[in-house]
């Protein structure tokens, strides 16, 4: 053996015993993959119709974000005086710099979207029931980390958009009684956004949050193994035959995943070549642009803020929604239908009805509140008139809706909870759309154009 061959042999190692004695180099890949994947998976778990490969897409986007972010770190300067200039420099002087920046920005937004759609798929296929309850909680933590990563990254260009978006988002904390203002000053490193804020956000965005994400994603995957894989898709009322028909992970699952991954990469590259990441003028604490908007992923909360007292918009409502999401897997479900899209045939109809109702009632509520607001502008909002009373009205509508689904449609508790979730999600998406496209100068309602 030549020295080169001996060195190669040492790198290759003796390796695990496999029944393929061939010299096919793919066997190394297979051996590697099988360290954290099972050898076989149920045939019904690998198709697009169950997962839409949204978890895979999220994983790929996370990897792309880490790689492109590491590249950006070589050019970006996290100081209030230099940050903006360094972003301009990336866009104008660095070869492929603008492409890299676009890739990072659009991948970040795309991860928000795929992770959220993945959450919906997990919910509507009943994949959050036991033994996967805790993985739903881990998933929520991942969603929170993805949101925080997008938020902290939003500030880094230090332009007018980012400066004011962070100003109004963090000012929300002032309305949280007691700990709110100290917490805000801790996050900002002072009473208002400044150089310390940029440094804080940079440390969070480039070290603490990505590390936590990677750690938690690995935990997420491990819990999937612990639950003996993901759910098995079945039709409503279908009983699964045992043993389940299985296929080998390599190549059946892995090639599909690789195809999905390549599609995601291609889509992000195509998007980044056609659309530039936004950059306004350098941040100017003396002038808020009109309109100043929160980042689009907080637009739902911003829209609630237009109507309700901030104590309710910023604290009570988000806290209620979070509590609902956290409790979901632990409610006493009377008809947990794991692996069935929307649980049952009736489930599909109630979900559709709930989505439409949520959208229409929200749009109606916004118009109603706008009419009341413009009629009464005399006195400043109070917690009672602009907080508690409208909040109780909303609670009454939501509770009435839940009772109606349960009584009129004779739905099971699981179906009614599913309808409630759909109603709230639809309402939130409607608010996000209104805030993003139907609010113009002075935050007036306008037609998009």
């Amino acid at each position, binding site marked *: 053996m030549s020295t080169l061959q001996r060195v190669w042999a040492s790198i290759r190692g003796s390796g695990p015993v496999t029944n393929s004695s061939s010299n096919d180099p793919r066997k190394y890949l297979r051996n590697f993959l099988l360290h954290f994947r099972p050898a076989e998976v149920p045939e019904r778990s690998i198709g697009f119709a169950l997962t839409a490969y949204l978890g895979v897409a999220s994983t790929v986007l996370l990897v792309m974000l880490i790689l492109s972010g590491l590249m950006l770190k070589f050019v970006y300067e996290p100081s209030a005086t230099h940050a903006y200039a360094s972003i301009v420099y990336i866009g104008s002087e660095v070869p492929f710099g603008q492409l890299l920046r676009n890739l990072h920005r659009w991948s970040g937004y795309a991860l928000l979207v795929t992770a959220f759609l993945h959450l919906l798929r997990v919910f509507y296929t009943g994949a959050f029931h036991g033994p996967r309850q805790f993985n739903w909680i881990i998933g929520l933590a991942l969603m929170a980390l993805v949101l925080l990563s997008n938020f902290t990254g939003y500030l880094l260009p230090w332009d007018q958009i980012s400066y*004011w978006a962070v*100003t*109004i988002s*963090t*000012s*929300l904390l002032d309305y949280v009684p007691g700990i709110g203002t100290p917490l805000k000053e801790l996050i900002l*490193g*002072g009473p*208002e956004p*400044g*150089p*310390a804020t940029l*440094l804080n956000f940079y440390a969070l965005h480039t070290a603490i949050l990505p590390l936590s994400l990677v750690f938690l994603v690995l935990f997420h995957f491990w819990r999937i193994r612990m639950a003996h894989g993901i759910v098995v898709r079945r039709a409503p009322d279908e009983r699964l035959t045992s043993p389940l028909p299985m296929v080998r992970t390599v190549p059946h699952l892995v090639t599909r995943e690789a195809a999905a991954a390549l599609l995601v990469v291609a889509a992000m590259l195509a998007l980044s070549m056609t659309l530039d990441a936004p950059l306004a003028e350098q941040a100017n*604490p*003396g*002038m*808020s*642009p*009109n*309109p*100043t908007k929160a980042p689009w992923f907080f637009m739902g909360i911003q829209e609630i*803020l*237009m109507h309700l*007292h*901030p104590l309710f918009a910023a604290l009570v409502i988000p806290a209620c929604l979070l509590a609902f999401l956290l409790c979901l897997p632990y409610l006493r479900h009377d008809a947990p239908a794991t692996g069935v899209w929307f649980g049952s045939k009736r489930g599909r109809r109630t979900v559709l009805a709930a989505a439409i109702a949520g959208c229409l009632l929200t749009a109606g509520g916004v118009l109603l509140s706008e009419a009341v*607001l413009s009629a009464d*502008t005399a*006195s*400043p*909002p*109070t917690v009672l008139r*602009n907080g508690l009373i409208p909040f109780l009205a909303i609670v009454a509508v939501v509770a009435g809706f839940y009772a109606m689904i349960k009584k009129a449609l004779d739905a099971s508790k699981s179906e009614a909870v599913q309808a409630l979730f759909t109603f709230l999600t639809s309402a939130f998406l409607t608010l996000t759309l209104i805030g993003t496209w139907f609010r113009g100068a*002075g*935050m*007036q309602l306008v037609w998009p154009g």
Partner: protein
Amino acid sequence: MAMQEKKTSRRTFLNALWVGVGALSLAEIGFLISRFLKPREQRFAENTADAVIAAGSVDAFDPGSVTAFVRGKFYLARLDNGGFLALSRTCTHLGCTVPWVDDEKRFVCPCHASAFSINGEVLAPPAPRALDLFDIRIENGQVLVDTGKRTKRVGFEAAQAVYPGRA
């Protein structure tokens, strides 16, 4: 039997000890981190020696006028009756900077359309409180504004304005 009980209790005790020691070291690390982050506040804080700003002589401000001071981040408003108010330029809703719109004689926030009168009172929601005030002194016909002293308030009261003759 008695032996076993003793053993279990010793084990429980030692386990509790471990948990306690662990919690203690976590608390220490938390303390270290908070100490570590502390000095940055001073490094980034604005120089407090500049907190008192000489705005100019009393006669330089017409009644019913509003003058912006960029360095101190406030507006000096002179009411129609001659009183002075130093208003924070930060909207009490969510912290945007409110410009004075001279045509309409009111402050209008570009962010969520709150409006404030010349004395800082809310004319249009969603802002819940009047604009914050800074302390004003009038010495030798000069208006001095102390931007280190900020007062939060709900609405306007006559006593908040400072008058040249009476100070």
